[in-house]
């Protein structure tokens, strides 16, 4: 899809006044956030499992080429095929070519963020192959012709009335006066419509949460069962995944699975965790007769060894966005591309360039909540900070911000002048605040004061207070205790 990441400020502004979106986003905090906390609380080993997950991923990244080659060898040994793609265009072409070997008319799809990343659906449709999303959320947004707004709950921004509207438009073979008020009615309709699509599809395309080097296996994790119907019913199963999805062994994969569902939906384990190895065996009575894995790089090999390598640990649980105060008010579409929230704020500039997506790492309060819930302990705030630095170095920051930072640096390098200047500034703000002690308009911060008053500073500057406290060095424990209270 075409990125609108460069328009983040405009996107965010529109999101804030979108009532349906705000109603949908309001449910995040009571849903995912509470569920994750409950699941973590049920498992005393959870924090130790997070450390272990980080270590497994780091070990794998340190030997990435070794594990990828081992994975490839096992897939081939089991009768499958591995295709390597440096770019999105290569991956799309490989998939289309496979579809053409069976003259595919329709392709069912399990949920895959990599498919979104390479804009696979549009490409297949342009070339005469109809892609059908089968995850309920993905199906809804496919009908609405929009990108996902969340990596595990793609239609989290949609309210049920909008789903009903989309179904009325798309399912014209059904009674136009049928009731679609309840989520259950919507689900039943989608289940019935998609069931036939599963049975008719020539090719099934899924993503992969993990690729196991030991056995040449791709793993998918779903709750609906759509991924399984996608990969066992058609003649061909294509698993599409990026390089960093590889894991060493079944044991390591199992360890990672223990933190994945808990961090994502707060389930202990998703309903269906499925391991696929090669095509159906000679004596099997069902399953696909061909198994293909498409391995996508698309910029990831360049992240290895860079300051952004930690991002390659990501297992796509979505916890960072569920807990992000910025995501919670602007939603996923404001981020303008495939990956939203804190993980998107790091990954999108890496994949699209800081020129296109430089706004995203700035769309953060740096509260650190994302890092505190990340199952593989990615230092997301620090990675966003790296982009801010890079953006500044490349002079992509607006002139006014640069001038402001320059002015601040001038004073910061001259402590005596800085002290005097901040004293004067404090005094001026106090005068501006008047009796109420609130400032309603500030020349350099109009965007801020347009929506709320700024409280005028009271008392002295931090440096003045600090100096005063240093002057009265604590002599007794009583003083020390007083000091900690200040």
């Amino acid at each position, binding site marked *: 899809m075409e990125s609108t990441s460069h328009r983040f400020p405009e996107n965010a502004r529109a999101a804030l006044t979108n009532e349906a979106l705000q109603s949908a986003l309001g*449910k*995040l905090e009571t*849903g995912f956030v509470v569920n994750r906390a409950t699941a973590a609380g049920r498992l*005393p*080993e959870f924090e130790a*499992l997070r450390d*272990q997950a980080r270590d*497994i991923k780091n*070990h794998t990244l340190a*030997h990435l*080429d*070794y*594990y*990828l080659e*081992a994975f490839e060898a*096992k897939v081939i*040994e*089991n009768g499958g095929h591995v*295709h390597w*793609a*440096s770019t999105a265009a290569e991956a799309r072409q490989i998939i289309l070519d496979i579809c053409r070997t069976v003259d595919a008319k329709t392709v069912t799809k399990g949920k895959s963020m990599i498919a979104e990343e390479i804009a696979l659906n549009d490409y297949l449709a342009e070339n005469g192959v109809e892609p059908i999303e089968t995850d*309920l*959320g993905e199906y809804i947004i496919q009908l609405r012709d929009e990108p996902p707004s969340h990596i595990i*709950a793609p239609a989290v921004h949609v*309210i*049920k009335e909008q789903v009903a509207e989309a179904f009325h438009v798309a399912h014209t073979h059904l009674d136009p006066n049928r009731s679609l008020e309840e*989520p259950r009615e919507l*689900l039943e309709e989608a289940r019935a419509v*998609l069931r036939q699509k599963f*049975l008719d599809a020539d090719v099934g395309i899924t993503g992969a949460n993990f690729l196991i*080097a*030991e*056995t040449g*296996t791709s793993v998918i994790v779903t*709750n*609906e069962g759509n991924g*399984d*119907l996608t990969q*066992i019913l058609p003649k061909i199963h294509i698993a599409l995944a990026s390089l960093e999805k590889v894991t*060493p*062994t079944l*044991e390591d994969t*199992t360890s990672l699975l*223990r933190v994945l569902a808990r961090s994502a939906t707060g*389930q*202990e*384990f998703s*309903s*269906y*965790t*499925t*391991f696929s*190895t090669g095509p*159906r065996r000679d004596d*099997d*009575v*069902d*399953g696909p007769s061909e198994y293909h894995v498409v391995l996508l790089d698309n910029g990831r*090999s360049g992240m290895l*060894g860079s300051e952004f390598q930690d991002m390659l640990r990501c297992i796509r649980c979505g916890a960072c966005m569920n807990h992000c105060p910025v995501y919670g008010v602007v939603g996923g579409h404001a981020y303008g591309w495939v990956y939203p929230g804190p993980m998107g704020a790091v990954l999108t500039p890496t994949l699209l360039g800081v020129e296109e997506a430089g706004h995203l790492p700035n769309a953060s309060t740096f509260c650190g909540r994302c890092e505190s819930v990340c199952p593989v302990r990615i230092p997301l705030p620090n990675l966003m900070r790296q982009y801010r630095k890079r953006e500044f170095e490349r002079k992509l920051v607006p002139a006014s911000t640069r001038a402001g930072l320059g002015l601040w640096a001038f004073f910061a390098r001259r402590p005596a002048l800085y002290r005097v200047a901040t004293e004067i500034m404090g005094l001026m703000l106090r005068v501006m605040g008047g009796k109420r002690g609130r400032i309603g308009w500030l020349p350099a911060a109009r965007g801020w004061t347009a929506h709320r008053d700024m409280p005028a500073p009271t008392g002295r500057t931090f440096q003045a207070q600090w100096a005063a406290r240093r002057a009265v060095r604590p002599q007794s424990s009583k003083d020390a205790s007083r000091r900690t209270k200040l």
Partner: protein
Amino acid sequence: MSDARAEILGKIRQSRGVIDDSAAEARLSTRPRGIIPARTDKAPGVLVDLFVTQAEFVDASVDRVASADDVPDAVAAYLASQNLPSEVRLAPDTQLDDIPWDQRPTLLVSRGKTDGSHEVSVTAAFAGIAETGSLMLHSGPESPSTLNFLPDHHVVVLRASQVRKSYEDGWDDLRRQMTSRPNTLPRTVNFITGPSRTGDIEQKILMGAHGPRRLHIVLIDDGFIGTSTPEKFDGI
């Protein structure tokens, strides 16, 4: 696309500097286990109870019966409770051969995979995983995967002796079974933890998205309670 392969592997190696993969080789051959939750550290009988508790926690229903002889009645009772016709699609699995289906002559039993026209499937399982109440199943000539996903109701016949502590114990058992082709898994291994569900409409959890609406486990208390690492239970 061999060019892409060389290019990608080349880039990765470039960023690595000194290349020593002995740690990775060792990992693939020794397959070290990670942390296994202590909740599974239970005496065999209690482990089966944990499995039942965890399975019910994820909205599966469990019916415990004394022997294989009781299974036809248990299945018939389940069908009646759900107002379903007295008809099931049975996996052609030898594990189910000791069940006397003819005791219930009104229960219509056919065997094989499904094309989606069967409302209720009955399958065996490879193992039950107590840690999360998950069922471990795998594909094969006797156990078609379609039976696990297409019917509205999935009935699984599990024996208490098949209950394992962790997924890792399940993997070890499966590896032992695959001795003819080491490190080769069946085409499909399913861990099934409760029925199909979705939260994609306003985060409201609904059962029966695309897979079975209900998962019903008939658990045969077959007396022998095994684990793949019985020595760990010494002294309990």
